[in-house]
């Protein structure tokens, strides 16, 4: 085959099938040497799968790959590494209990006889660190360093192995806006040194900011490849979704009633004993959505767990409808009609080995009519399930199949249906549309608005700033366990919120 003169990588006709889904369908991806190439698409579009094939973690069912003009068959990551392809995964592949240096050299350790030559290892790490301006502490354990530094360790890891093509999978998902800027400077620095970069993202602003060319994937197929300067964000969004995209949710004015939920000076510790929620106070009224915006890892998880009885509260108090609910257990909270859509549906929200019927009553199974004393009433349970499936458009063939068989979006709808049907007067929704397809997102958003209009007080916690901004009537920004500022919907300025999310609103701790 004739090789294009300056394509470093050519993936042609890549197809990959998993049980139940065609993840990649005849995809073409062409990347020029020395460019920063963005691979964009919705969740589930097939981007990560494609890159895993490139990196040798998966085998493609069909298609060919050419690297530096040579046809190759990727069999395992070792081969990819040898060819000069390195990947920085979305979920870092770092070993917490080992040091930065150990993580970097793992598998390619410099030796002195049978032992590892740690001195040489440190030297090489420092060399790369200085060359590309990647500040790290070679002797620190991964569990003790920041997320930003962890990412730099991942980058050094692949540079250490001589990577010329660097693939980044959703690199900005866990970074603050400031760290994102730093990352893009690193990208530029790498490009100057002659490296080629592919980065996967679904964040269009970043794509516009840093990439040279963009390839869009949708539903497993490659839709188009364009030069970045020739398109707008809106163009790309439409390519990603396939139709006109509404960036704002249609909602009417809120009509808030009395205040029903008050959180006062809440303090919560995380699993390591650190006070991750450090004095949070807010209140929510009937019929309003209060949103909390912030980068993940600033205490949101612990906050939600504390409010729903899944984590002990170290200090402060929580009141609901006049009652002090601070000490209550998860069951007692559920019995008071407080609904909870958990941020991790597979871990918290569902028992995937249970049928849909059994999942629809999770948390309410001890109540009538689903059971009386300890005897379950399956007729009532099944009826309940069938009714919810219909009303909430959960796509499934039967209420008796296992929950593991539903798609992410339908699983989320199941959870929402379950919580909504209990007529909650207070609803706590954490990351309600994470990993959910666009159609389901719209449905879920409209359901939330509907509940609000019916008078439910809603706490919305989300890492998607656009979601928080479009749904909330009032919103607060969380940073390092505190709510740094609260806004009414019409006052909210995206730029200011972005700054607050990174701590510019208060004393910033000196960094890494």
């Amino acid at each position, binding site marked *: 085959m004739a090789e294009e003169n300056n394509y470093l990588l050519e993936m042609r006709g890549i197809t990959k099938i998993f049980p139940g889904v*065609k993840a990649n369908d005849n995809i073409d991806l062409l990347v020029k040497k020395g460019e920063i190439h963005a691979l964009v698409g919705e969740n589930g579009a097939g981007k990560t799968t494609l890159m895993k094939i490139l990196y040798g973690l998966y085998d493609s069912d069909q298609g060919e790959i050419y690297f530096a003009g040579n046809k190759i068959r990727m069999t395992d990551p070792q081969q990819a590494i040898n060819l000069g392809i390195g990947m920085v995964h979305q979920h870092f592949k770092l070993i917490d209990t080992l040091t930065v240096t150990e993580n970097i050299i793992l598998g390619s350790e410099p030796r002195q006889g049978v032992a590892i030559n740690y001195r040489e290892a440190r030297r090489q790490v420092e060399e790369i660190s200085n060359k590309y301006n990647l500040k790290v502490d070679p002797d620190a354990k991964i569990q003790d360093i920041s997320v930003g530094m962890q990412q730099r360790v991942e980058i050094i890891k692949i540079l250490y192995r001589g990577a010329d093509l660097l693939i980044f999978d959703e690199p900005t998902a866990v970074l603050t806006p400031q760290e994102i800027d730093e990352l893009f400077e690193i990208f530029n620095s790498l490009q100057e040194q002659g490296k080629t970069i592919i980065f996967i993202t679904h964040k269009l602003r970043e794509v516009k900011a840093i990439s040279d060319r963009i390839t869009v994937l949708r539903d497993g197929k490659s839709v188009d490849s364009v030069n970045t300067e020739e398109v707008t964000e809106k163009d790309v969004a439409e390519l990603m979704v396939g139709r006109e995209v509404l960036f704002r949710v249609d909602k009417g004015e809120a009509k808030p009633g009395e205040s029903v939920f008050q959180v006062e000076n809440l303090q919560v510790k995380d699993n390591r004993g650190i006070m991750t929620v450090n004095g949070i106070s807010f209140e929510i009224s009937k019929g309003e959505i209060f949103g909390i915006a912030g980068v993940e890892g600033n205490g949101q998880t612990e906050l939600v767990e504390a409010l*729903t009885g899944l984590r002990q509260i170290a200090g402060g108090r929580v009141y609901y409808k006049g009652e002090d609910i601070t000490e209550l257990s998860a069951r007692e909270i559920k019995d008071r009609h407080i609904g909870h859509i958990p941020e991790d549906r597979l871990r918290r929200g569902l028992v995937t080995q249970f049928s849909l019927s059994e999942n629809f009553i999770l948390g309410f199974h001890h109540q009538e009519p689903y059971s009386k004393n300890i005897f379950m009433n399956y007729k009532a349970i099944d009826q309940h399930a069938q009714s919810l499936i219909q009303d909430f458009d959960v796509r499934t063939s039967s209420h*008796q199949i296992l929950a593991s068989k539903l798609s992410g979006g339908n699983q989320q709808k199941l959870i929402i249906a379950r919580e909504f049907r209990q007529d909650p007067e207070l609803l706590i929704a954490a990351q309600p549309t994470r990993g959910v397809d666009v159609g389901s997102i719209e449905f879920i958003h409209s359901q939330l608005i509907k509940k609000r209009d019916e008078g439910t007080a809603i706490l919305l916690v989300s890492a998607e700033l656009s979601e928080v901004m479009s749904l909330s009537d009032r919103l607060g920004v969380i940073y390092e366990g505190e709510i740094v500022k609260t806004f009414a919907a019409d006052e909210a300025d995206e730029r200011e919120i972005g700054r607050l999310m990174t701590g510019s609103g208060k004393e910033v701790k000196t960094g890494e």
Partner: protein
Amino acid sequence: MSELQTTKTDAGGRLINILIELGFALFSIVIALLVGIAFILLAGESPLDAYHALYIGSIGSWREFLNTLWRATPLIFTGFALALPFKAGLFNIGGEGQLLVGGFAAGFVGFYFTGIPGGLHVALAIIAAIAAGALWGLIPGILKAYKGAHEVITTIMLNYIAIQLTIRYGIERYRIGGRQALPTIQDSAKLLRFNDLAELPVVGSLPFIEAFALPGLRLHFNFILALLAALFLWYLLWKTTTGYELRAVGFNASAAEYGGISSKKTIILSMVIAGALAGLAGAGEALGTHHTFMSGMDAGLGFTGIAVALLGRNHPFGIVAAGILFGALSQGGLEMQFVGIPSEIVTIIQALVIFFVAGLQMLKWFLLKQREKGEAE
């Protein structure tokens, strides 16, 4: 011991599941028996003689079949003792120790107290056994729930402690004469044996009762209790909220916690019931089989119970069937010993069954994945 299901939980899907499970179980047994041939040959005996003896000794006659059920009884209970906590995500390897303390308690109550009317005495002894077994399950349960202590090792340790307590110390303290056992229990504490059924007031006049009046028949009432326990467990697991919660915790403890279910309570409850059931096995052996608590009466029943639970796919009814199978192996093993073949072969076959069932699990998993892949294309 992952349990695999097809996608549907309705009646049709469940039937397919059962058939698949049954198929794999039978397949494992057959392979184990085949490999067992090698060991028989190594012992210089004929596999034909061996398996013939096995057959004759276990189900070759009505009496032997009933004796097979007798052998199966404690295995069914110890199988339950593994399976129930397993449903909640725990490995209870402590069936042996729970059986011993239960048997000791029953044997002790059985011999120590005199002058108590028959039915009451038996009942008290059984209650003592259940309590002792429950306690022996409670300890690792609490340690796991509150301290995160790995139940595999704590239960195994408690097995050894039970041996020291009951056999080495307990028997030593109370025995009479040279026999390594507690004194024989009072007649009033003896558990009803099937060959005494003909002498009972009402039941004795039923037409078919004479069929049980066989000399050498050792089947006793605990078998009935085992069957009742199976029904109880089945109902508990699938028809009650307790069972729902237990299964939820076993599948996904985080989601169960979200659903307001207390993992701790569930863990402890499952271990207590399991211990009680194993204790009941011990009671049966003490009150029905030996009429005393004696050294060696546990005979690896706890560990065999693990194989029974595994083969029975952790389902109460499956365990009854698997228990009967292993009882047959055990009963037939006696006959094998009579014709000069080491009965240890039975133990070896049991271990082989475990290997093959565990190994075939993964085969099933691969096949299921292949089928799903086919569905997708």
